[in-house]
């Protein structure tokens, strides 16, 4: 159960980010000081192997907050689900 004061978020990984991190998803409480999507991408590189390699090129990574595309400058504020993936290639 998730209480009203739970500050954890679900991080999800797709395509080669899923393969490189070895994770489909994880539930995590982010350290303080992570305000934007860009902050979050930089933080990922500090988590050691395999995150350092998976997130080595943040410009090649897209992020969605609660199922909506977000720019690197976007505030993550109250997002409950944050997804990391390469540029999309459907159609």
């Amino acid at each position: 159960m998730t209480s009203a004061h739970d500050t954890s978020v679900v991080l999800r990984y797709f395509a080669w980010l899923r393969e490189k991190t070895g994770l489909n998803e994880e539930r995590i409480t982010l350290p303080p000081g992570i305000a934007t999507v860009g902050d979050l991408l930089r933080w990922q590189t500090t988590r050691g192997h395999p995150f350092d390699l998976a997130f080595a090129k943040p410009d090649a990574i897209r992020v969605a907050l609660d199922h909506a595309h977000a720019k690197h400058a976007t505030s993550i504020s109250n997002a409950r689900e944050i997804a990391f993936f390469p540029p999309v290639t459907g159609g």
Partner: protein
Amino acid sequence: MAVRVSTSDFDISAEMARLTASDAGIGGVALFVGKVRDHAHGEALSELVLEHYPGMTEAELERIEAEAQRRFKLSASLVVHRVGTLKPGDNIVLVIACASHRQNAFAAAEFLMDYLKTRAPFWKKEVLENGQARWVDARESDDMAAAAWESEQG
């Protein structure tokens, strides 16, 4: 107005009949079907694996469809996208746009495809006959096609 993500194939005639049945004011229906090619960068392709982001995919496709509806005054529309493991010749995506006249139907179908290609969370992995597998790179031309709509009508 409908979007659907599916592991199984679609029947174009049946989908179109369902979409146009309720509105006899429809004069033009533009459709697009994307298919798996048998080669990639000169190499024979064995399989195309399509991954997506359940939940966001539907939300994003609905946003794209609502925008097409708003811009082109569609009578009806449909987006079906397949996921899972596909073979050369298999259908990947179906877009249908119904309008009073052909110009809006065509424009809407192109708009739906351009936006779907750059915003809907699908990813393709090519498995070659030589055993290699690689994630498909996004095409800059797709980004430009989508961006071209941004400067048009609000």
